C-alpha cells in the first residue's frame, strides 16, 4: 500500500430511506466525496446497503487508482424503527407494570387532541391489554420502598410472560426514575429464567417523571428491539464480507452516533436518526461558511421540516411523538421520551393535494398523492393538482429534465387538473397555481416564524440552508416571507442525510429526574451521580471510537409551580454549591430572553439533570470526488417563470448548477438546475457559487 495513504482512509455513510438507499463515501482527511444510490430492498434492507457500499468502493478505487482502500468506519441511519412502529409490525411484546397501573396505555392523559372532532381516532397501544402483567413491590415518590418486591411476585411474572409467549418485555414501574432497583431486579429475573427474551426497562431509557410517557417509551423500545438487533447483526455480517474489522456505528436522534451494540440495546434512540442527520448536514454547511444562526429547511415529497439553531449546535428536545394518527395534530401519536434534535414539521411536501374547502377557500393537504398515482404531471393517473404540478406550471420545474431527464413531466395533465380547481374557485389557472405555491410557502413560513419566536430569536439574523428535492424550489420565497436575507444550498442535497452522518460527532446523552428546589439540592449526591454516569458514558464513547470528549451538565429548570421547563446548559466542572449559582444565572438569562421578565419572588427548581458527552463538533469540508464543473457561465436556455413580486411571467436564464465554476456571480431572477433538485430564484438576488460549490443567494430586497 502506498505509504502516504496510511493517513488516508474512507468513511462511509449509508441511509435507508423509503424509496432509495443513499450512500456517501468520503476520503478523510481531504473531504472528497462519492455518492451512490440504489432502490431500497424492503424484504432485506441490508442487500441495498451492501450494493451501495460496493458501488462506493469501486468509484473511489477507480478515482484514486488504488485497489483496496482502507475503510475506517461505516455510519448507518435507518427508518426501520419508525416504519415498524407506524405499520405495527413489531415483536410480540408484554408489559410489566406496578399493581393498579396496567391500563395506563389505554388511559393515557384522558384528553382529546381535537376538541371539535366527534370521530377522533386515538392512537392504538402497542401492547394489547391481555399482554400486560402487574407485579408487587411499591416505591414512594422519593424512591423509598413502601413494599418489597418478592421472589414470588417475580416468579409469577415470569410464568405470565412464558404463558404469553412474548419475545420482548417492557418493564415500567412507578417512581423507577428515582430508584431503578425494582425494575433492574425484574429484568435480571427474566434474563435468568427466560434466557433469550429481550427486556427493556423504563429507567434505562428515560429516567424522567410521568409514568405514561416513560412507559410508552419503554414499550416502543421493547416492540422494535428484537427486530433491530437482528437487523444490525446481519448488517454487521454483510459488512464483514466486504471488509474485515470495519466498525459499524449507528446514528442516534440526538445528532450523534453510537456503537451498533448500543443501538441494538436501545433502538428507540435511533428513531429520528434520518432527519437528525439532515440537520447536521445543514449545520455543517453553515459552519463551513461561518454562519452562526441557521434555519435548516428540508422539503421532500411528503413533508417539510425545519430546525432553528444558534451557536453551531442543534437544539435537542427530550420528548417526541411518533406514529401520529393525524400528522399535523399534536397529541395524536405515541409519546417517546428520547433526546432528539428539535425538528418541527412545518408543512406538507410536493405531493400534497390542493382543493377547495367548504368555505370556498383554496387549501393544500393534508392528503398527499403519494408516489402512486403521484402528482397529475407524473402522468400516472393522478387527477388532483399538487404542489409539484403548480411548480411545473409556474415554470420552476423542467418538464424534460426532472430527475436528470429520467422522468418526463406531463404539463397538459398538470394544466387540466389545475384548471378544474380554478373553475371551482372562480379564479384563473395561473392564479390558482401561484396560490398553491404561495399558500404552501406562507404556511411553512408561519410555522417557522412561530418556532423562531418561541426560541427568542429574530429571523432577520438568520441564514437558511435548504435541502431535499423540493427545498431549493421553495426556499427563496419562504426566506423572503420570513425576511431571512440569505439562503445557502449545499452540494448533494439529495444525499444530505449521509453527509450529516459523516459530520456527526460521537455523542452520549444521560439523564435522571429529581425535582427539587435549587436551594435544597444535595451537591455531593449530584456529583456522585454525574460521576457514575460519566464513567458509564465514557466507555460507550470509546466503543464508538471517540478519542476526545467534551462534557456538559444540563438541567431542565422552571419556577416552582410552572409546568414547562427551560433547558439550561453549563460546562462540566467539579459540582458544588456554586453550580447552583451558575445554573440560576443561566436560567434567568434564558427566561428573560424568552419571556421578557422574571417572576418576582418565585423559586427556581430543577426537574431533570442531564449529562452530555460528545466529540467536539468540527467543520467537515466536502467536495465532489470527480471534477464536475465545466467552467461554463452562460445559461443553457431561457425559460418563462412566474415572478411573485411582479405577479407575472418573465424570461430568465436557466443554468446547469454544476457547470458553474466557484467564484461565479450571477444576478437573480434565475434558475439553477441539478439532477435531484432545482434552485428557483424568483426575485432580484446576488447568486454566488462558493469554493465548495455551495450556492449562496443574497436577496436584494433586504440589503
Amino acid at each position: 500500500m502506498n505509504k502516504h495513504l496510511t493517513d488516508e482512509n474512507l468513511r462511509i455513510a449509508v441511509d435507508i430511506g423509503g424509496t432509495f438507499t443513499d450512500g456517501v463515501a468520503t476520503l478523510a482527511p481531504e473531504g472528497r466525496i462519492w455518492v451512490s444510490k440504489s432502490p431500497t430492498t424492503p424484504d432485506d434492507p441490508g442487500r441495498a446497503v451492501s450494493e451501495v457500499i460496493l458501488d462506493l468502493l469501486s468509484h473511489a478505487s477507480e478515482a484514486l487508482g488504488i485497489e483496496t482502500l482502507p475503510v475506517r468506519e461505516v455510519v448507518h441511519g435507518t427508518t426501520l424503527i419508525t416504519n415498524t412502529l407506524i405499520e405495527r409490525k413489531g415483536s410480540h411484546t408484554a408489559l410489566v407494570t406496578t399493581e393498579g397501573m396496567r391500563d395506563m396505555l389505554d388511559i393515557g392523559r384522558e384528553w382529546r387532541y381535537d376538541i371539535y372532532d366527534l370521530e377522533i381516532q386515538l392512537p392504538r397501544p402497542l401492547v394489547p391489554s391481555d399482554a400486560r402483567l402487574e407485579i408487587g413491590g411499591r416505591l414512594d415518590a422519593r424512591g423509598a420502598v413502601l413494599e418489597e418486591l418478592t421472589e414470588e411476585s417475580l416468579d409469577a411474572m415470569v410464568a405470565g410472560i412464558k404463558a404469553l409467549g412474548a419475545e420482548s418485555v417492557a418493564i415500567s414501574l412507578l417512581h423507577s426514575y428515582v430508584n431503578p432497583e425494582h425494575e433492574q431486579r425484574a429484568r435480571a429475573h427474566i434474563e435468568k429464567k427466560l434466557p433469550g427474551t429481550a427486556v427493556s426497562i423504563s429507567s434505562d431509557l428515560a429516567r424522567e417523571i410521568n409514568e405514561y410517557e416513560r412507559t410508552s417509551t419503554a414499550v416502543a423500545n421493547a416492540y422494535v428491539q428484537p427486530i433491530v438487533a437482528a437487523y444490525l447483526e446481519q448488517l454487521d455480517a454483510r459488512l464483514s464480507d466486504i471488509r474485515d474489522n470495519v466498525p459499524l456505528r449507528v446514528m442516534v436522534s440526538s445528532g450523534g452516533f453510537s456503537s451498533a451494540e448500543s443501538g441494538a440495546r436501545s433502538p428507540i434512540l435511533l428513531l429520528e436518526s434520518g432527519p437528525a442527520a439532515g440537520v447536521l448536514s445543514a449545520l455543517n454547511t453553515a459552519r463551513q461558511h461561518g454562519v452562526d444562526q441557521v434555519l435548516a429547511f428540508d422539503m421532500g415529497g411528503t413533508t417539510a421540516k425545519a430546525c432553528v439553531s444558534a451557536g453551531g449546535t442543534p437544539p435537542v428536545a427530550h420528548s417526541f411523538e411518533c406514529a401520529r394518527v393525524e400528522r399535523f395534530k399534536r397529541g395524536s401519536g405515541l409519546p417517546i421520551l428520547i433526546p432528539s434534535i428539535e425538528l418541527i414539521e412545518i408543512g406538507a411536501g410536493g405531493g400534497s393535494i390542493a382543493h377547495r374547502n367548504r368555505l370556498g377557500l383554496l387549501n393544500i393537504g393534508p392528503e398527499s398523492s403519494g408516489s402512486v398515482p403521484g402528482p397529475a404531471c407524473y402522468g400516472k393517473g393522478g387527477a388532483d393538482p399538487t404542489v409539484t404540478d403548480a411548480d411545473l406550471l409556474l415554470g420552476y420545474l423542467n418538464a424534460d429534465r426532472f430527475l436528470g431527464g429520467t422522468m418526463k413531466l406531463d404539463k397538459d395533465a398538470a394544466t387540466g387538473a389545475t384548471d378544474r380547481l380554478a373553475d371551482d374557485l372562480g379564479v384563473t389557472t395561473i392564479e390558482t397555481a401561484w396560490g398553491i405555491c404561495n399558500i404552501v410557502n406562507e404556511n411553512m413560513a408561519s410555522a417557522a416564524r412561530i418556532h423562531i419566536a418561541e426560541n427568542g430569536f429574530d429571523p432577520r439574523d438568520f441564514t437558511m440552508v435548504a435541502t431535499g428535492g423540493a427545498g431549493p424550489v421553495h426556499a427563496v420565497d419562504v426566506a423572503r416571507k420570513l425576511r431571512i436575507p440569505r439562503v445557502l444550498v449545499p452540494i448533494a442535497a439529495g444525499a444530505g442525510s449521509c453527509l450529516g452522518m459523516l459530520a456527526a460527532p460521537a455523542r452520549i446523552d444521560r439523564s435522571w429526574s429529581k425535582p427539587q428546589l435549587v436551594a435544597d439540592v444535595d451537591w455531593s449526591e449530584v456529583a456522585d451521580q454525574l460521576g457514575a454516569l460519566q464513567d458509564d458514558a465514557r466507555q460507550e464513547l470509546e466503543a464508538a471510537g471517540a478519542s476526545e470528549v467534551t462534557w456538559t451538565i444540563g438541567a431542565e429548570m422552571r419556577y416552582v409551580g410552572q409546568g414547562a421547563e427551560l433547558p439550561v446548559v453549563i460546562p462540566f466542572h467539579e459540582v458544588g454549591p456554586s453550580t447552583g449559582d451558575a445554573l440560576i444565572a443561566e436560567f434567568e438569562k434564558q427566561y428573560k430572553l424568552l419571556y421578557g421578565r422574571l417572576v418576582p419572588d418565585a423559586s427556581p427548581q430543577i426537574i431533570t439533570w442531564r449529562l452530555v458527552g460528545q466529540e467536539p463538533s468540527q467543520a467537515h469540508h466536502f467536495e465532489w470526488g470527480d471534477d464536475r464543473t465545466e467552467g461554463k457561465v452562460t445559461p443553457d436556455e431561457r425559460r418563462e417563470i412566474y415572478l411573485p413580486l411582479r405577479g407575472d411571467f418573465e424570461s430568465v436564464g436557466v443554468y446547469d448548477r454544476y457547470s458553474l465554476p466557484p467564484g461565479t456571480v450571477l444576478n437573480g431572477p434565475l434558475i439553477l438546475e441539478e439532477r435531484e433538485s432545482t434552485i428557483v430564484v424568483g426575485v432580484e438576488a446576488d447568486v454566488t457559487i462558493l469554493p465548495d460549490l455551495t450556492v449562496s443567494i443574497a436577496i436584494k430586497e433586504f440589503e
Partner: protein
Amino acid sequence: MPQQDTDVIRKTAATEAKAAGFDPIELEILWKRLISVVDEASAAFVRTCFSTLVRDGNDFAIVLTDAKGRSLAQSTMSLPGFIGCLPATVGHFLEAFPPDEIKPGDVFITNDPWKGSGHVHDVTTATPIFHDGRLVAFAAVVSHLPDIGGRLRSNSSREIYEEGLQIPLMKLLDGGEPNTVLIDMIRQNIRVPEQGLGDIWAQVSGCRTMGERLQGLLAVTDLEALGTEVQKRSEQAMRDAISRLPDGVYRSTVQHDGFDKPIVIECALTVSGDTIDIDYSGTSEQLPYALNVVPIYTFAYTVYALKALLCPDVPNNEGSFLPISTGAPAGSLLNPEYPAASGGRSAIGHLLPLAVFTALADVLPDKIWAAGSPNSSVTMSGSYHGERFAVVNFVNAGQGATSGRDGFSALSFPANLGNTPVEMIERLAPIKVLRRELRRESGGIGRHNGGSGICFEFEVLPDASDIMTSFLMTQMKSPTKGLKGGGDGKPGQLLLNGEAIDPTMPRVLAAGDVVRMETAGGGGFGAPGSGQDSNREQET
C-alpha cells in the same frame, strides 16, 4: 420551453374577472396567519403559567377580537366552554371603559362569573391592541387560577361570597402602570399568591405577544375588512349546515343527580331555516349549591355541541355563533341571579351537549353520541412534613357509543381536562395511588357498547393527617342513558373505606383512609346484536 402554454394560461387569466375583495387564496393566507398569531400567544402563555389546571388540564383559552369585541380567531387547544365566553367579556369591558378612553398599556381584568366564564376561579384579562394610534383589536385570555381564596372549590358553597375573591371589571394596568391596590388585594386574598399572580402576569405577556405579532399582519391588511370577511364565511358555513336540518322543534330531558332531588334540564331546540334557538324553560330552579350556570356559559357549551356536530372543520369566530341563540328563565339553574354560587357549574354545563345530542338523535342518528359522563375531580390540600400542598386530579369517564362504534373509555368530554400523572400526584400529596384503572363492564351494552369509566383509588400515607379533600362527582345516581335500544352505563360512585359517601361535603382525611372514585360508563347504542337493522329502521 413551450411558449404557447403560458400564453394560453395568460389568456385565461385575462378573460376571467377577479373576484371582488379578498380572493380565495389571499383570504386563506391571511386567515391562517390570524390563527397562528393566536396560537403563538397561547404557547407563550402555557409555558409561563403556574397552574397545573392550564398545562395538564387545558383549562384556558385565548382569543383575538376586533375593536368591538367580536371574536376573530381562537387558540387551537382551547377549552370549549371558554370560547363563547371570552368575546362577551371583552364586550363588558367596552361597556365599562369607553373605547375613546382606552389607551396603549391598559390591561383589563375580572373574574365576575356573569361577565367572565361562570365562576370566580377563572380570571380573564384583556389587552387592547393599537395600530397607527387607533384601537383595532383586543387580545383576551381566561384561565383557571390555582386558587382564588374562599373555601376549597366545593358544591356545598351556598353563595358566591364563600367561593373566593371577586374582582369586578377593573384595570390591572393603566397605561402600563400596575394597579398596586388591586394587586395587593389579590395577593392578600389567595392561598398561593406567587403562583396566582404569576399566572396573571403570564396572561399579560401572552396578550402582549399577540399584540406584537399582529403588527406584521396589520401592516399589510385592513383588519376590519378581514374580520368581516372571515366572520361572514364562518357564519355562512354554520347557516348552510343548519339549513340542512329539517325545520322543527326537538326536545330532550337530561337528568343530573342533584342533591335532595334530581336536577332536570329541559331542552327545546328549534330549527328554523338557517337558525337554531335553544330554550331551556322548564329546567330546575337555581340552587343554594355551587352548580349554577350563568347564561354565557350555558350559551358556550350549547354552541360547542352544535359546532362539533354541524361544522367541526370551520375555524371558529363570532360568525359561527350568530345563527344560534339560547335562553333560560331568570332564576333558573341556567340563568341564576346574584349571589348564586357557581364553582361546580361545569357538572351542569357539561351536560348541555348531551341535551343537544339527545334532542337531535333522530335528525343526526349517525353523528350523535349516546350519553356519557363529564369529568369528576378531587382536590386535596393540607400540610405534610411542614410544607403546604395543594393538588387537583381530574377523573374522566366513559363516553356514549354511536351508530358506528363503541364509546370512548376514560376520555374527557365535552371539556378537555387531562389527568395528573400518578408520579406527580404522589410527589405533591402524601397519598399512595392504589389504582387508576379502566372500570371494565361499566359501559352500557348495545350494538355498540358505551366506553368504560375509571376507577381511581388512593390511600393516605401512615404519617399524614388532616388532608382537606373535596370532590366534584357526577352521574352517581342518574345513569348515562343508552340510545336506540342501547343499555345505560353504570353510574359512578364514591367510597370512603369501602362505604359509599356523599361527594357534596368536603372531608378531612386521616392516615390510612382509602378513597375510591369510580366514574360512570357511557351509554350503549342500538339493541345488542341488532346488526345493521337498527340503522335501516331509523332511515325509514
